[in-house]
């Protein structure tokens, strides 16, 4: 029996390995096991090497795992590229029709299975080797002694509704894989410890889906976007989902039109969403400035990828933080949030909608490529508690209505509102007085600039200092943001087991940051900011730079990386080691 297992399935992107990875993840969610997945996809149009990694277990699973316990290699290149990722004593199950491994390497157990020919034999007909992913899933189901009836049920739901022969072939291949005699490999004890039943219903999905559904729960019914990897799945889902709720999502002709259409929705009284990846966010910057100036609420999702420019469209990076906070011209305060895991994508979208409405400001959510596509299982949200019903409020505005009051929150009167005082408002990107009239009065520009900034100060005052994970005081504090949450937490757990006193703090609110961080920082000797971006000219990553300028604290140092891959636990530990020996 093992606590958890990391399975890496390596093949080509058209082999459907993402599909079986998703099925495994969903099964884990159903059986109360914790799960996290990780995938790479080539940025080519069709084909190219691709992996899907699933980490299943009964404990708290926070990262996709540093090493694989089990490698499924579909091709020679899959074997060659990924055998190094297999832990010593791990199993390499390979397609003996395609792969010729070095079986003299005694660090691993090699298990040959003719995936291609066995699938052809099992499915027959014109399907050829399509379905070998399902065959492999059948094999994994028997090796790990997974809940077969539930898996079959999930497969049937996934492929049901399509052409009947597709489900039939999928199940034929799956059953053949399940029944394939694997000999004594089963003695290697890959059986997972049963998870403790939580008694709660769980769901498994990816970050982009969780985000799209969070927006709906937050009462967002309108949006516009332009396709770009890895943001597109959010717009695709909203395009299909929103009409059911009486809303719509528009595919625009470009990024500038996308944010403008979204601002049109918001101006019209329907809080809207637009999104993109880094390059598209750059294109939206001018309009974002307008949203700050005109005080129009808006949600902008940026699913970060490797940059600059076209960069690494299908790799992960956290290099858009500065752009999100400071990317526009002028003094342009806006809120920036970052979800820590897939579940949080759902809740942060709801929070973004709340903040945007309350303060009439644009809110940027920084997700990333890894978070967008990986699947996690989490407790199904209590919709009755979190659901927000949108209201288009056209109640006549009072006689003393001011679109931009110097005191109090901005509450726009959407078009269609009767203005009982007879004065109708113009929302504007020019500096303006309380009534929205253009002015370049120096005093007013100072007051209005402060007013726009003070919204973020009021938000800051609402925020709670994040809890630390680990020792309440000690030698080291790791600071993270976004999808590095899991590996940082696991690094803390591993080092605490070795007797080190350390903790981690994770920032979901990046602009403004929650208050009280300086007090937390005081309790540790070293502060390391872990982030997936470059250390820059002065040796600090983007969040570290912000924290240093905020707290003037030379204890703050950076652990950065720019390989386009998520942090491994050992990389974080090695990063600490570079400053102070922790692994001696």
């Amino acid at each position, binding site marked *: 029996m093992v606590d958890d297992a990391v399975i890496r399935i390596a093949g080509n992107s058209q082999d459907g390995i993402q599909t079986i990875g998703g099925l495994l993840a969903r099964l884990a969610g159903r059986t109360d096991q914790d799960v996290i997945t990780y995938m790479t996809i080539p940025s080519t149009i069709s084909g190219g090497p691709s992996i899907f990694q699933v980490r299943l277990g009964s404990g708290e699973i926070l990262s996709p795992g540093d090493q694989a316990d089990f490698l499924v290699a579909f091709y020679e290149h899959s074997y060659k590229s990924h055998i190094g990722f297999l832990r010593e004593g791990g199993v390499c199950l390979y397609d003996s029709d395609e792969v010729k491994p070095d079986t003299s390497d005694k660090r691993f157990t090699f298990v040959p299975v003719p995936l291609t020919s066995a699938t052809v034999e099992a499915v027959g007909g014109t399907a050829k080797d399509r379905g070998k992913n399902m065959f492999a899933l059948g094999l994994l189901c028997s090796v790990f002694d997974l809940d077969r009836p539930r898996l079959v049920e999930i497969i049937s739901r996934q492929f049901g509704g399509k052409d009947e022969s597709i489900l039939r072939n999928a199940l034929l291949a799956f059953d053949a894989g399940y029944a394939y005699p694997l000999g004594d490999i089963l003695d290697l004890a890959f059986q997972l410890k049963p998870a403790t039943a939580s008694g709660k219903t769980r769901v498994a999905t990816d970050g982009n889906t969780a985000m799209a559904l969070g927006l709906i729960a937050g009462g967002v019914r309108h949006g516009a976007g332009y396709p770009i990897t890895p943001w597109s799945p959010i717009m695709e889902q909203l395009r299909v989902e929103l009409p059911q709720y009486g*809303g719509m999502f528009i595919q625009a002709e470009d990024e500038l039109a996308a944010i403008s259409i979204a601002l049109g929705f918001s101006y019209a009284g329907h809080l809207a969403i637009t999104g993109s990846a880094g390059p598209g966010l750059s294109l939206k910057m001018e309009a974002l400035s307008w949203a700050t100036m005109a005080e129009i609420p808006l949600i902008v999702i940026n699913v970060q990828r490797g940059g600059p420019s076209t960069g690494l469209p299908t790799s992960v990076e956290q290099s858009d933080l500065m752009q999100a906070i400071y990317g526009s011209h002028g003094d342009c305060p806006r809120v920036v949030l970052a979800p820590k895991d897939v579940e949080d994508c759902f809740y942060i979208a709801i929070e973004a909608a709340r903040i945007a409405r309350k303060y009439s400001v644009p809110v940027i959510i920084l997700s990333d490529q890894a978070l967008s596509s990986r699947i996690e299982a989490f407790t199904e949200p209590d919709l009755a508690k979190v659901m927000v019903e949108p209201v288009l409020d056209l109640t006549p505005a009072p006689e003393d209505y001011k679109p931009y009051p110097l005191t109090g929150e901005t509450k726009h009167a959407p078009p269609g509102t009767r203005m009982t005082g007879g004065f109708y408002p113009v929302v*504007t990107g020019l500096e303006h007085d309380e009534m929205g009239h253009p002015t370049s009065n120096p005093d007013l520009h100072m007051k209005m600039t402060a007013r726009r900034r003070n919204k973020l100060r009021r938000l800051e005052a609402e925020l709670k200092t994040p809890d630390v994970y680990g020792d309440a005081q000690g030698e080291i504090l790791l600071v993270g943001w976004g999808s590095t949450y899991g590996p940082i937490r696991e690094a803390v757990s591993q080092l605490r087991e070795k007797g080190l006193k350390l903790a981690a703090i994770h920032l979901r609110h990046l602009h403004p940051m929650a208050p009280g961080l300086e007090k937390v920082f005081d309790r540790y000797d070293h502060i390391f900011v872990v982030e997936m971006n470059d250390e820059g000219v002065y040796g600090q990553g983007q969040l570290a730079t912000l924290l240093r300028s905020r707290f003037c604290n030379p204890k703050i140092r950076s652990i950065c990386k720019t390989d386009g891959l998520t942090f491994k636990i050992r990389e974080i530990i090695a990063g600490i080691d570079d400053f102070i020996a922790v692994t001696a």
Partner: protein
Amino acid sequence: MSTITIKRPEATEPVAKLDKKALSADHPTWCPGCGDFAVLASFFKVVQNLGIPHEQICTIAGIGCSSRFPYFVNGHGVHYIHGRAIPLATGVSLSRPDLNIFVFGGDGDGFSIGGNHLEHAARKNLNLTYVIMDNFVYGLTKKQTSPTSPVGFKSKTDPWGAQDEPVNPMRKLVASGATFVARTHAAQVNHMSEMFERAIKHPGFSVVEVLSECVVFFKGSFDAANPRKGGEFPLITEKQWDESPDDWKAHDTTDLSKAIKLAEEPWPGKFGVFYEVERTTKNANEQSLIADAQAKVGNASSQEILAKRFARMR
């Protein structure tokens, strides 16, 4: 059914008819003699004639002299960024069928920085009216070449005379798929008002190009089309589809190739409606997507729909 709740007053007391006073806001910042004053006056007149309720007037503009328009109209308005008024208006139009949406802008907004948006709004046939106040020059930034500046026009960016072939607005608009395309002149107030009225009544993307002289940076630019300045104001005779003897010679506004041909006429060309057809609007298409999707979910509340979505991920 899951719909968006709208909080609005019950039938209120009858509203006083709109007059010029109620519609006037800030005094225009335009230079004395600017053609845009006449456009504003004409707009006020048409809005009053059509009896559009005050709160339903929504003017939207980008950047430029003419784009200051919303400040001068006492109505709901947006002064947006350069070139993007049309996409912003798209969001308003699609989500608020109760409003009357007017976009005002110049040749820079429409044909240069916002040229691509114009193409796509026309293609999508969005329900709104777009008035392009074309003065053939960048006025707000003080005399640079505009996309409609004629070859040879001397500006600060082309002191030796503009070189690039100017945009042909009528040809571009008709080719883009706009469903109502008309051309008028700010000095011909009655004709301008007639064009506005027809554009507003048109269901779909209606565009009116108004030749509106910049008396400071391109004086006399449109004299050739102004009888008071010794020019001519030749009107398009539209086909009446009656049996009258000369009707066959008149312009068929539903004929795309004839509209393009008309747009090719040498300066100053003709004035009136070049093209007018009815085509399903994007507004209607999106509403039918909503209707279909809602028919499928029946009476489910939004919470029930979302709960069902989550159930599929269990």
